[in-house]
């Protein structure tokens, strides 16, 4: 195991280094510069040049790249060009919103999607199966941000049970949690719909295999055949999808964050990109890349747990 982990770590660092280079080059090639944006349409060229110098944008590209990489190792990500505050703090402020939101949404997705998928498979071609198909189809067809708008119309402006958006901060834990409920539903339910279909298909697939028939022939109760033999084996593709979904929920929540006016990392990435705050956007993008790699690693680990055969081989 340690050998695997070590190899994994080396792979992780190497991938991030390659990713960092790609990110840096692509961002550097984007048209537009932060100084001109900050100074607006009345500024003269000499003022823009002075600000560029102040922001360090006049340094050669290789020097800026190396100082970024050096900063990554020392934990200093530099200062945001637009906000003027350390990027690490800026990202931390956003992640304390985004990570709990993604976890809540994942809870919704898994909690609703997997049982419903199993249920649909267990009642294959019966009413629950058809019902689940229809619901899942709708869930996949409805975009998350639009679901968010509907939730706001119904629960906030209609019933007045929730704020229409915004985030009070974790200083008020209950209010903060409450602010995440509707966005988590908006994000989680469409993902749940995907999980319903994946789970159902996977369970049906496993259920047609010989060992399941053997278990049934042994005279095991149907419930035990379903949960111990079929579902457990059917979870491998589901876990893969859940892993992908978690990365999406962190990095791809920007539309839902916008609808609910939540200061998440997706919104930070979007704002930083439109302001050409390259110092911020490059670290945020690298964080996304690192996240995908880590989640994939965790998914691989979960295979070992789910499938003893892999453990024996590993």
């Amino acid at each position, binding site marked *: 195991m340690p050998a695997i982990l070590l190899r994994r770590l080396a792979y992780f660092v190497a991938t991030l280094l390659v990713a960092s280079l790609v990110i840096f080059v692509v961002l550097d090639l984007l048209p537009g*510069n932060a100084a001109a*944006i900050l*100074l*607006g349409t009345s500024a003269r060229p000499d003022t823009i040049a002075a600000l560029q110098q102040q922001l360090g944008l006049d340094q050669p590209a290789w020097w800026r790249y190396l100082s970024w990489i050096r900063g990554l190792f020392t934990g200093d990500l530099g200062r945001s060009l637009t906000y003027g505050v350390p990027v690490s703090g800026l990202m931390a*402020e956003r992640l304390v919103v985004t990570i709990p939101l993604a976890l809540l949404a994942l809870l919704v997705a898994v909690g609703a999607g997997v049982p419903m998928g199993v249920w649909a498979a267990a009642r294959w071609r019966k009413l629950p199966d058809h019902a689940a198909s229809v619901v899942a189809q709708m869930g996949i067809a409805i975009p998350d941000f639009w679901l968010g708008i509907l939730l706001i119309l119904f629960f906030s402006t209609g019933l007045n049970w929730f704020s229409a*958006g915004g985030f009070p901060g974790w200083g008020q834990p209950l209010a903060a949690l409450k602010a995440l*409920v509707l966005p988590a539903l908006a994000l989680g339910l469409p993902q749940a719909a995907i999980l319903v279909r994946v789970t159902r298909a996977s369970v049906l697939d496993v259920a047609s295999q010989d060992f399941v028939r053997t278990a049934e022939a042994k005279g095991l109760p149907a419930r035990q055949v379903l949960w111990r033999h079929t579902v457990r084996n059917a979870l491998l593709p589901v876990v893969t999808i859940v892993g992908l979904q978690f990365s999406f929920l962190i990095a791809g929540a920007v539309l839902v964050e916008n609808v609910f006016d939540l200061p998440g990392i997706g919104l930070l990435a979007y704002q930083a990109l439109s*302001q050409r705050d390259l110092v911020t956007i490059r670290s945020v993008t690298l964080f996304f890349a690192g996240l995908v790699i880590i989640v994939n690693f965790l998914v691989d680990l979960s295979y070992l747990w789910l499938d003893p055969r892999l453990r024996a081989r590993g």
Partner: protein
Amino acid sequence: MFGSSLKLRMMMMMVSTMACLGSAVAKDTLTLGLPVEPTGLDPTISAPVAIREVTWGNVFEGLVTLDEEGEVQPLLATAWDVSEDGLTYTFRLRDGVRFHNGTPFDSSIVKFSLDRARAEDSTNAQKQFFEPIASIDTPDPLTAVVHLKQPTGLFVYHLAWGDAVMVDPATVDANRTEPVGTGPFKFKSWQRGIRVELVRNDDYWDAGVPRLAAVTFRFIDDAQAQASALRAGDVDGVYRFTAPELFDAFQKDDRFNAVAGLSPAKIVAGMNNARAPFDQPKVRQAMMSAIDRQAVIDAAYSGHGVPIGSHYAPTDPGYVDLTDVWPYDPDKARALLQEAGHADGFKASMKCPQMSYVMRTCEMVQAFLAEVGIQLKIETSEFPAKWIEDVFIGHNFEVTAVNHAEPMDIDIYSRPNYYFQYKNPQFNALIAQAGATVDEDERNALYAKAQEILAEQVPALYIFGMPQLSILDARLKGMWENAPISEAYVRDAYWED
């Protein structure tokens, strides 16, 4: 089915733990929604309008200020004299003013603030306002004497801008994140991406002001989210509401006071005057005559907005309505095109920022020009980054459209390398003369002439002045209807009992 029962359970759990907030005791706080979060809170180092919205007149103050009509009024200077030759301004300063950190405000502060803005390495977005200054004397703590290199007509007017506010030398490096000014409100906190909180400055020089104990600016980018926040009561109002199509519904709602005021922002479709066929005045005049401005306003901003005939906003001092110089007249447009040798029209490209109101303006302009045979191909240009690089700096465009948000910026047409590429020595001379005229009436007469030249020559298509849409709780008083300098001024706001 499972999903909805889970939803229900979570909802019930939340409702049972919900605390009852927002009781009805005499209210002295204000939560105001704004569409754009500022990137910093120091208006003297960068341009974005959002910085002024939070800080102008609320946290920072200048020697003078503007009133709701855009007229200059005393603020930290109680009075000023201008010498006969227009070269020496003597400001008498308000006594007993202190910054929020206790630093007294005196003539040394005036000298420091203005010298900083005009310094070699200054990154003040309006550095040109301060360049006429030759030197500043401080004969005593309450007198500041500013000597100019040449008479400068709008010198005092420009001192009312956010770029000219008074700053404490000790806090200039920190103002960006923790602003310290002399204003009625003190900075309390900034949760990035969410809100800026201000609290009453109990030592404010004007006794009895402000009446509110605290003000929170909440940043809500999405127009739908602004409307939802208003309806759910999350905010007491939204200043600079960005969903004109939802505005009428709020106007009919008694709980709200929905006002369409005036702002300095102008939607202008600039042309590259250095490129054919836009180098021919007749072509530009034809294009202007082909456009029904009111129809554009109806489509792009739900009918809110003021048609303009020149690069001048109704809130700017000396405004003249020149929309009748080239009124909507497609036949006239065709005739002008024929005279210019383009009887069959021509093809061109139009670079448009992605904001919906600009895009809709572009599409309307495109439709009206197609009526007279001019085929415009619309290309999206990401604003601000790509547009600034491509159009503003690179001049790589034929037609464009953008929101010019600065007040009193007609002088941009006289700048040698501005993106319109308009060259008119007569206009330049007029702007220079107006700039050097200290007498207000005389100056306004010159600016009127400058407006007439632009209206006649049409270096850019003048479409409409953006409204200042605000939707406020009906009990909230003391907020401005107009926004002469794009501010969100809460100094005089209060709740009606």
